[in-house]
């Protein structure tokens, strides 16, 4: 081997890296303008409180951050957000999985059913919220007085709101799980059949392990959706009754005028940090444990 080889290798590595960065550039530039810049402003507002007329600002420093994050408001919002996750994530995942398992088979017309199951993808959060407004609204809703999801009582209101998200997420979960099922090679299933695996054992020993990257992705996405739920709350309960559906995002959005934006920004940063840590933990822990089928 000649002496020039390592240098050439280094050069081609540098060129490859440059190519990689160039591909990232359009996306990153856009994210910089519409995601990182707002984030920077949050940090600023967390440290500096604007005066009431928006003409000047005073440094409030880290004490502001610790005050808000340790405060009752933040803790209440966090607890309600966590409850929202508990209501929406496992239910959404299981429903999507069941629908996908049911619709993943050779039948005439199966495409029709697949289309129906994925149809809620086509609704926006706002549409889903209006749809459920007609169903669970206490005054005019068909199921307005079902105790379990009664929006007019603070014990059950969050469940009523969560129903909207669960229904709306069904389409996405279904589509992604179905795609995951279709990616599982047929001969693995056949091998399991020849080994005398029954349907239940096949599901738990073959299908689910191979599906685990997809399911992991969905858990992450559904949790993020849950952390960010806003429209159904705004439309169905406006945070009530008695603040029982005020998730963190809702509290943050209600704190945008100069007097409160500092508090709102700290909450937003807190929520961001929290989601970040949870997601990162999920990705690293699960990444190591899920089966990627190699």
């Amino acid at each position, binding site marked *: 081997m000649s002496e020039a080889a390592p240098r050439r290798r280094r050069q081609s590595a540098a060129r490859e890296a440059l190519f990689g*960065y160039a591909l990232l550039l359009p996306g990153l530039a856009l994210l910089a303008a519409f995601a990182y810049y707002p984030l920077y402003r949050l940090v600023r507002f967390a440290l500096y409180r604007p005066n009431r007329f928006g003409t000047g600002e005073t440094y409030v420093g880290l004490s502001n951050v610790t005050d808000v994050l340790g405060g009752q408001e933040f803790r209440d919002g966090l607890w309600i957000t966590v409850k929202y996750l508990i209501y929406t994530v496992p239910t959404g995942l299981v429903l999507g999985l069941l629908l996908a398992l049911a619709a993943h088979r050779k*039948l005439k017309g199966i495409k029709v059913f697949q289309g129906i199951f994925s149809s809620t993808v086509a609704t926006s959060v706002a549409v889903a919220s209006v749809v459920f407004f007609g169903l669970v609204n206490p005054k005019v809703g068909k199921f307005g007085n079902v105790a379990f999801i009664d929006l007019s009582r603070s014990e059950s209101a969050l469940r009523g709101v969560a129903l909207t998200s669960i229904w709306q997420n069904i389409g996405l979960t279904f589509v992604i799980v179905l795609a995951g099922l279709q990616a599982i*090679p047929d001969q693995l299933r056949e091998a399991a059949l020849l080994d005398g695996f029954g349907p239940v054992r096949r599901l738990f020993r073959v299908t689910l392990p191979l599906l685990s990257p997809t399911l992991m992705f969905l858990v992450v996405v559904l949790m993020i959706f849950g952390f960010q739920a806003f429209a159904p709350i705004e439309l169905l309960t406006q945070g009530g009754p008695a603040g029982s559906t005020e998730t963190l995002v809702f509290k943050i959005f209600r704190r945008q005028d100069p007097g409160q934006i500092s508090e709102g920004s700290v909450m937003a940063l807190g929520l961001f940090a929290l989601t970040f840590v949870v997601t990162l933990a999920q990705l690293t822990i699960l990444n190591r444990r899920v089966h990627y089928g190699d």
Partner: protein
Amino acid sequence: MATDELVDAVGADLPRAQGPAVAEGARRRLVLSQLGWYVLLSALSLLVLFPIWMTIVRAVSEPFVYIQEGQPLYPIAVDWGVFGTAWADGDLGRSLLLSLAVTAVITVAQVVTSVLAAYSFAFVRFPFKNALFVLVVATLLLPIEVTLVANVRTIRELGWLDSVQGLSAPFLASAFGIFLDRASSACRASCATRRASTGSGTSGS
């Protein structure tokens, strides 16, 4: 063991070494199980579509009569005119066109930016790849409601308020798209050879 089960599961595809009687039974069982699946799938479809159906019922029924009759599951005192009224009152024609334009711009831009970035993350080697990926995925964690105020200000400064470019600009790049694309291309790289040898297709789970 399990020859029966095998016939059952693989159905008509299996050569019938067991003789016509067993094959006949297997075929009958296959038809029955297919019928069962149709019933189940139809029931599930009704469940998924129920909220939409109820919204249609509520939309076309005369509101007072509908409430008075205790909100039945079917429409009563139907007035199809509501669609025309909504179309005119809400100026839906213009709104739909605007949505169409914004959707087209966002879709094209997101596909382009996501595919480029995802390809880079999945196949190109460069330093700080993981850090950059985390940076991208982190934007997923910023709720729209949180970035909204700053973005509206940016759009106003650009002079794009009330315009297609103003409505779409914040959404031209999507961490979700990049994340999803990378996940599937990383799988494709490892699954491709396997799939090429078998041919892909749907089958029972």
